[in-house]
């Protein structure tokens, strides 16, 4: 692998807090190494800003290995940047060449209010999970793990749905700011497993209900969520959620568990 250095122009969204208006700020970046990760380039920028007595850029990040789902930048019009099936923290500077201008924005969705600069509040996702993204089994209730065989193909499909990292790229990338890929993935995972069967109807109703309260947009079947999902979660999950919801409505024995979530979103 050839290593090289480059000079870049960074255009970054700066916003003091939720209330104040934001704006773009332009930074010239010198001698950036192709081996650096994208966030390490931001480390270089921040180090410089600190020494210049300016405020460093605030952004969410934690594991820097593409699994925690904290990092969230909209880079040159793409969630998590130009590489597909990738998170910002795993994007490396060899994706760029000398002289490039890079525009970095926060996730933009009414349901994800900005906290500062590139950092947004994604608690809406937690509240959706609270509404039913679990199997109600108290510790100690479980039977032996092998007492219920699970179709291996279904189990693998459930796993694929469960690999969602909850980063919100689906919402950010969706022209409608819809959260259905996130919600559909969790509903699918639990609907595919026999353990999730007893609650499947209440689950889909309550989770969709909470999603609606949070102020996300509606799915337009555009599928940019799937294209930008760092884990490649399939839109089949959305279709399954649609089926589950219709099924839950159609069934006569359906009794809605009152949605326990106390918050009503933004």
């Amino acid at each position, binding site marked *: 692998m050839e290593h090289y250095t480059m000079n870049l122009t960074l255009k970054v969204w700066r916003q003091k807090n939720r209330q104040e208006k934001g704006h773009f700020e332009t930074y010239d970046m010198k001698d950036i190494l192709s081996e650096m990760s994208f966030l390490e380039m931001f480390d270089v920028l921040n180090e410089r800003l*600190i020494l210049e007595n300016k405020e460093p850029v605030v952004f969410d990040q*934690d*594991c820097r290995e593409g699994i925690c789902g904290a990092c969230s930048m909209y880079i040159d019009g793409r969630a998590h940047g130009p*590489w597909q099936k990738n998170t910002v923290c795993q994007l490396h500077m060899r994706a760029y060449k000398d002289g490039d201008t890079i525009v970095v924005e926060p996730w933009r969705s009414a349901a994800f209010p900005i906290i500062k600069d590139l950092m947004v509040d994604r608690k809406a996702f937690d509240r959706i999970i609270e509404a039913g993204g679990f199997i109600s089994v108290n*510790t100690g209730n479980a039977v032996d793990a092998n007492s219920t065989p699970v179709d291996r193909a279904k*189990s*693998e499909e459930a796993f694929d749905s*469960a690999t969602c990292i909850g980063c919100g790229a689906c919402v950010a990338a969706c022209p409608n700011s819809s959260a259905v890929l996130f919600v559909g993935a969790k509903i699918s995972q639990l609907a595919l497993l026999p353990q999730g069967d007893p609650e499947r109807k209440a689950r889909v109703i309550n989770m969709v209900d909470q999603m609606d309260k949070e102020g996300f947009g509606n799915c337009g079947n555009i599928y940019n969520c799937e294209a930008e999902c760092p884990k490649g979660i399939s839109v089949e999950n959305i279709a399954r959620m649609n089926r589950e919801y219709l099924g839950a409505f159609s069934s006569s024995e359906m009794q809605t568990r009152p949605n326990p*979530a106390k918050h009503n979103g933004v």
Partner: protein
Amino acid sequence: MELDAKIPVTELDQKWADYKNHVNLVSPANKRKLELIVIGSGLAGASAAATLGELGYKVKVFCFQDSPRRAHSIAAQGGINAAKNYQNDGDSVFRLFYETVKGGDYRSREANVYRLAQVSGNIIDQCVAQGVPFAREYGGLLSNRSFGGTQVQRTFYAAGQTGQQLLLGAYGALERQVSMGNVTMYERHEMHDIVIIDGKARGIIARNLVTGKLERYFGHAALICSGGYANVFYLSTNAMGSNVTAAWKSHKKGAYFANPCFTQIHPTCIPVTGDHQSKLTLMSESLRNDGRIWVPKNKGDKRRGIDIPNEDRDYYLERRYPAFGNLVPRDVASRAAKERCDGGYGVGTTKMAVYLDFADAIKRYGKIETGKLGMTDTKNETITELGKEVIAEKYGNLFEMYEKITGENPYDVPMRIYPAVHYTMGGLWVDYELMTTVPGLYSLGEANFSDHGANRLGASALMQGLGDGYFVIPYTLSRYMADEIRTNAISTSHPAFDEAENGVKERIERLMNVRGNESVESFHKRLGKIMWDKCGMSRNEKGLSEAINEIKALRKEFWGNVKVSGEILEMNPELDKAGRVADFLELAELICIDALNRKESCGGHFREESQTSEGEALRNDEQYSYVAAWEYTDSGEILHKEELTFEVAMPSQRNYK
């Protein structure tokens, strides 16, 4: 204070049952009145909070991330051990116990480890019931693999994302309790101090990271589940935010810190590329099942890896340890890599890396495949093609990750790897009940010291975190809470809260007011370098003594020259980091003091003065068969020893030759 581990006095395999049978219980009506604080939302914190919420306690959970689902347990790759013996290959609770104690180089407590092995099976049951999609066989039953060179297949896994799946299971259980009102979640909150009233832990001071305000919370008891402190080395496989603050504040308020020098260095990580490096990425240990590790035989060989012929390669693990070869334990493999690189045989631009080569495995699997297909035409390209397919099926996601980071295709050129700090076995000293030396203050998961001794086996961290949270703490906490039912909630306007908050406030203001010239990050890097060079894979008296002085000097410099930008009352990650690094600067010294005190080599702690003539680690059971528990005082750390007695797993020297 005399250390009392409160281990039940009965046969090893009866201790836990005996404890559970006699522990005091709390009635449901009383549980509703009892409040608990949990710090951290990883496997230990989330599982404990969910379970205690289910029991009826009022639980408050704090995490610095924006959601409990982001705790770093999520990054664990390989799997979780459990003594289920589903494979009928001779596994048992006893074997898991025995191997964990032996793997920990006889520096862990027998009773705790035995209990862990006993509850290991329940963990799997619980996770499956929660909808964790573990790997399965075609018949629909759970699949197992062998991990870290064990002779039995007892590791349950979900591709290379076991930690993620287990954490999401616990997170779901936690969110369920949040929805039921039993647990209140405080995201983007960082604990800054423990409040102690009449000698008992009664609350915390937390900083709301969004507003920057300090907040007070009361609890009848508090659980520290904040993970390990590997980031004291700056570069580690931990998340950027992983920190020791909660544990360290507890230590400064009276909780002893045990075996801080026991840190684990994982042999297969992607090497450092330069000064800009912010963290390291692990490549699962399972790669060593098929990859062969080597360096060039000649110093300064400038050829590319694939151009070096076999006769010029040194497969040093296979050479030194013919019995285990590339599958020697983590500490042994790590030290061997360091030895080669220090000797000048390293590869890559920085020369601090060794090759992990899959070419032979690809050829071997390719041949098997052509055989299966009945192919007589055995062109090399066909064999390689088929072999790569087999490798892709086994390690595809890891190879992809490697390529993303390095830009090199590991199917064609050998991977470059180097050891990196990965896990810390040391932590807050806890007794059999997981209580620290402060009454009412507990510690679970990686944050405590208890189960892994001087070296943790692969796939055991997840087991311990969940074991502590789901199955141990609900019982042991009950013993303490039974005596607390008459304690009414204490108002957070109590003077002890005032005092603690003022202390925190002063410290934050002090940090902001230094207004020096060097960034927090820069201090952290410098600390990491001292630790890695002098208290890393191999340690000696001279280096450790130097390190202690250098750390002291660096700490002084930090408080005189650190530059923290921004303001207190706003989202300010620089300030958050400054507080964490300030704590690392204190912990680092204790790690070195502990390492200096332990003049033996055991597990992840290798003292150059204590090795065999062949350069292998040499334990000293006569003098060091104890847990070193350090007490913080204003005049320095005081050592307390908890002697380790082995009744069942008799100490022997590890031998991988």
